[in-house]
């Protein structure tokens, strides 16, 4: 049985369908990548899985529980077993790097401070920022902040981690480290990982399964090898990053030529 089962998911922002009948299975112990053009709703999907947004119809089950039918307490209990790396990092700005990583431990466990210290330093060591522990989030670069957020996402040793764009803003070395780290966490700790990313290279390197989303639908899914062999023009264009093809680069709406020709002047 998959850890996460998404069935016939519909979600609207205003009149615009972000998801229009999506089915996704995320299997235990695997790394599943969600890919798709910017603005298709990848972050939205993670928020739906985490219970921060409600679908208009359809269901999302995590570990056998329907996320949106859980009580407040039940949802919070489930979230203790989910880690999430936010696209923006979402670090708490008024406490240090160390305290940020220690935050979930202090909130949810009664561990003695010495043990918390060891655990936090271990996680920070893994992302190469052990010596940055006394810095405040405002003193970090974007890439560093994201690595701290990554360390924080896994401090409670969750059963699954959702990474929203873990590779963005990393130099080649830390990128390699993070790819390795995600891979190692997944294999060593038996985590289930969901990666949202645009980095085709890195993602295909570690993902077991990839889902390609566009215009509210799953366009294609399968292993990296299967996708590379896919005959779909759409998939080929996306994976190879070609500028021309069926993948829309523009936010949907009025055609450019019509827009230029129209006499309507917006006030």
């Amino acid at each position: 049985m998959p850890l996460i089962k998404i069935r016939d998911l519909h979600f609207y922002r205003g009149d615009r369908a972000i998801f229009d009948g999506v089915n996704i299975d995320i299997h235990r112990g695997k790394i599943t990548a969600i890919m798709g053009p910017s603005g298709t709703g990848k972050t939205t999907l993670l928020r739906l899985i985490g219970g921060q947004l409600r679908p208009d119809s359809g269901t999302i089950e995590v570990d056998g529980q329907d996320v949106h039918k859980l009580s407040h307490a039940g949802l919070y209990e489930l979230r203790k077993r989910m880690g999430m790396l936010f696209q923006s990092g979402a670090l708490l700005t008024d406490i240090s790097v160390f305290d940020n990583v220690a935050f979930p431990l202090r909130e949810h466990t009664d561990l003695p401070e010495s043990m918390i210290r060891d655990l936090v330093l271990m996680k920070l060591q893994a992302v190469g920022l052990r010596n940055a522990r006394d810095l405040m989030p405002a003193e970090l670069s974007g890439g560093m902040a994201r690595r701290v957020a990554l360390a924080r996402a896994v401090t409670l040793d969750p059963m699954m981690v959702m990474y929203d764009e873990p590779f963005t803003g990393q130099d080649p070395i830390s990128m390699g480290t993070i790819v390795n780290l995600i891979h190692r966490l997944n294999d060593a700790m038996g985590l289930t990982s969901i990666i949202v990313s645009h980095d085709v290279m890195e993602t295909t390197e570690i993902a077991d399964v990839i889902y390609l989303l566009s215009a509210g639908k799953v366009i294609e899914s399968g292993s990296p090898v299967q996708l590379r062999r896919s005959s779909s023009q759409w998939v080929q264009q996306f994976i190879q990053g070609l500028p021309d093809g069926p993948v829309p680069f523009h936010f949907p709406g009025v055609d450019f030529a019509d827009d230029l020709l129209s006499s309507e002047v917006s006030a």
Partner: protein
Amino acid sequence: MIDFIRSLGRWGLDTLQRLGSGHLFLWYMVKGIPEVLLRFSLVIQQLQSVGVRSVMIILVSGLFVGMVLGLQGYNTLVDFGAEESLGVLVSLSLVRELGPVVSALLFAGRAGSALTAEIGLMKSTEQLSGMEMMAVDPIRRIIAPRFVAGIISMPLLAAIFSAVGIFGGFIVGYGLLGVDDGAFWSQMQVKTDWYDDVLNGVIKSIVFGVVVTWIALFEGYDASPTSEGVGRATTRTVVHSAFAILGLDFVLTALMFGEI
């Protein structure tokens, strides 16, 4: 015309909806209070930033308000040869009205706006949703401690304001205008009643503390997550708090002192 009615309707619905979510928010905060009392260190941190940092402005304003009361009161009383009663006038005005009301207005401007901006910014930088995903309820962890701190701070600040104000009135009356100091203090002691005056003043300031902190926290939590949204929410906190304080003051005064 139709447009006007329509926008009136929309405005009405929006207002109702905000009122509803504001009350729901209050309910969640109140539900979070028992847990906060068990983890009182969170409240102590907030007492520092909400309460202690407002002390300076309260001291200075209280002193000047008291001094002005001394001057104005003397000018009126002296016509009736009743300048000995200056102490009563100053203390009753402060303890019943000006202490709770002016310190609440200052509190809204100093601490309320800061709370709204802080929470609004935490929301717009996703710190609140980050917390939710770490299974930490921001209403219990962030909002409720601030709420409790606001409720504790307000009556204390009002008391400081009244005390300093009475002292200011005394400086002016005794030092500048030559009112007899014995009469100033003894009349004040006789005529200021613990229950009718002091306790009612304290009740007022607790009510104001609840309302101002509630408005400030709700505006921050409900702010649209942009810099403009947070700015607007901060302004709204100060304006709505002022209306609420003055309106409630009338109601409370009518209930407590008016023979209605």
